[in-house]
């Protein structure tokens, strides 16, 4: 009897990503009515390419959210990483070496975010908001507040985001996004780390009581998120061949929005990389569709706000159906 009841209530929300899929289809439907070009293959690939950079950020942020925390510093790391890289490269440090230094920096940064949050027992909202301002200040200091141009290391950074030699506007970032979504799916659902991270986010005290030290898994999630933030930054830097601090502003909020649309719970313990993937694509289709529909692009921000709230409401329902409240 009970078993049947549980099964039937779960049916409607069988998959973590059902809300995200619904949002995406709705967005596609509406914008195709406004402009049939929206659904053309060329445009869909453009949507995918623009969604990839924010999406890769979202994959990392998603992991932190599953661990029951937030990382608001990813936008600053996104700009600081290429700025450090180019500053070193322009001082004749070999580019591979410069890249390695940035990777090490991102790992240390993530460890810091996680360690201060978990050991200092303060909300990650505070730790990473502070980091966001601090790192933005550092980025402004290094760049002198100016655009940093990609002069050294273009060849190396092309591994992240070179245009693909095809007729359409599609870049390597799309492939990275595809592959990383799958990798993150495996990490979350199929590994011991994923299992422990979900437990650490769902109920850190329970995890600790059974001997799973929640701080470790949360901290690793921060490290991975800050690495993906750096990766996203390199992709943007390669695509625009220049970057300044304004590139990273509010990116963390877009990433969180993508995750919430994707069904990830703000309360931790539950989330999906495929959901974050669909969430990021929803955001970029919104941006793209508004342009094709001839609407002023500042509506983009207004729509994001509305979708975020609707997704939040949807998640509450999904949560009670999937986890009993």
């Amino acid at each position, binding site marked *: 009897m*009970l078993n049947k009841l549980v099964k039937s209530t779960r049916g409607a929300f069988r998959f973590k990503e059902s809300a995200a899929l619904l949002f995406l289809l709705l967005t596609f439907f509406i914008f195709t009515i406004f402009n049939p070009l929206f659904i053309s293959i060329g445009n869909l690939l453009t949507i995918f390419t623009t969604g990839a950079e924010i999406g890769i950020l979202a994959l990392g942020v998603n992991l932190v959210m599953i661990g029951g925390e937030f990382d608001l510093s990813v936008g600053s790391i996104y700009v600081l990483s290429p700025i450090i890289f180019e500053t070193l490269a322009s001082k004749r440090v070999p580019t591979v070496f410069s890249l390695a230094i940035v990777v090490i920096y991102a790992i240390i940064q993530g460890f810091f975010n996680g360690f201060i949050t978990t050991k200092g027992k303060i909300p990650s909202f505070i730790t990473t908001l502070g980091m966001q301002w601090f790192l933005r200040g550092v980025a402004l200091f290094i760049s002198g507040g100016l655009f940093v141009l990609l002069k050294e290391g273009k060849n190396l950074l092309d591994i992240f985001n070179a245009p693909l030699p095809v007729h359409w506007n599609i870049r390597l970032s799309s492939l990275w996004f595809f592959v990383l979504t799958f990798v993150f799916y495996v990490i979350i659902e199929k590994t*011991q780390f994923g*299992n422990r991270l*979900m*437990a650490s986010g769902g109920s850190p005290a329970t995890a600790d*009581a059974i001997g*799973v030290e929640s701080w470790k898994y949360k901290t690793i999630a921060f490290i991975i998120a800050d690495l993906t933030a750096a990766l996203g930054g390199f992709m943007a830097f390669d695509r625009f061949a220049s970057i300044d601090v304004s590139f990273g502003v509010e990116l963390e909020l877009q990433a969180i929005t993508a995750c919430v649309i994707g069904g990830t719970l703000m309360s931790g313990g539950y989330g999906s990389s495929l959901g974050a993937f669909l969430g990021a694509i929803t955001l970029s289709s919104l941006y793209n569709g508004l342009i094709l529909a001839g609407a002023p692009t500042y509506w983009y921000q207004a729509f994001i706000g509305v979708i975020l709230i609707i997704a939040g409401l949807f998640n509450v329902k999904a949560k009670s159906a*999937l986890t009993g*409240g």
Partner: protein
Amino acid sequence: MALLEIENVSKSFGYVKALDNVSFQIEKGEVVGLLGDNGAGKSTLIKIIAGYIRPDSGRIKFEGTPVHWKSAAESRQAGVGVVYQDLALVNVLPIWRNFFLGKEVNKGWRILKFLDISNMKATSKDALANLGIDIPPVETPVAFLSGGQRQMVAVGRGVYFGAKLLLLDEPTAAVSVKETEAILNYISQLSKSGISVVFVTHNVYHVFRVASRFIVLDHGRLKATFRKDDKLAPEDIINSIASPL
């Protein structure tokens, strides 16, 4: 040789003396009721035995050797299973993930190791069958379980991973009458198979049925111990708990 020996254990939190020179022993296969009013020091004692917090002074011996567990993982490894009232299971995770939390079964090689999900589902399903309480499919999130089902999942997990001593914190609180029966029966069964149980509770009548010895704590001190015989009635223990120190 006693399975667990507690010798002169004390623990203070600031000015509050949570445990004051407490000593007792638990034999193999024995069910001991740990009783006392709110704030008597029961949960502190449980947490110290489980290695979750460290005592200020005193000694703990497990299977005859002194132990200094620094984490819950270490005591679990040695054979102590704890079922906390609120911290037993993670609500959002399905039963099988909870069952194997911290002791996951992996397959694969070196860094490319992945959860052996089908194995873990099948194993947890088997381990939770025939406990006297029906458990829903192991894919069900724990949030959907009743109080008794949660207890059974947590206890079943402890037994499966080879616990020699189970510390049960209020196992019959928020549990239906029918499920309470099943849990009490199961505790008796455990005792017969040689597993020792410390049963922490307010409910003297529940523990009276399964325990052979009762320890009463009051303000961190060991106030009285009772051994079950023909003359002992639950009311004697209740009077002891309620009487002034």
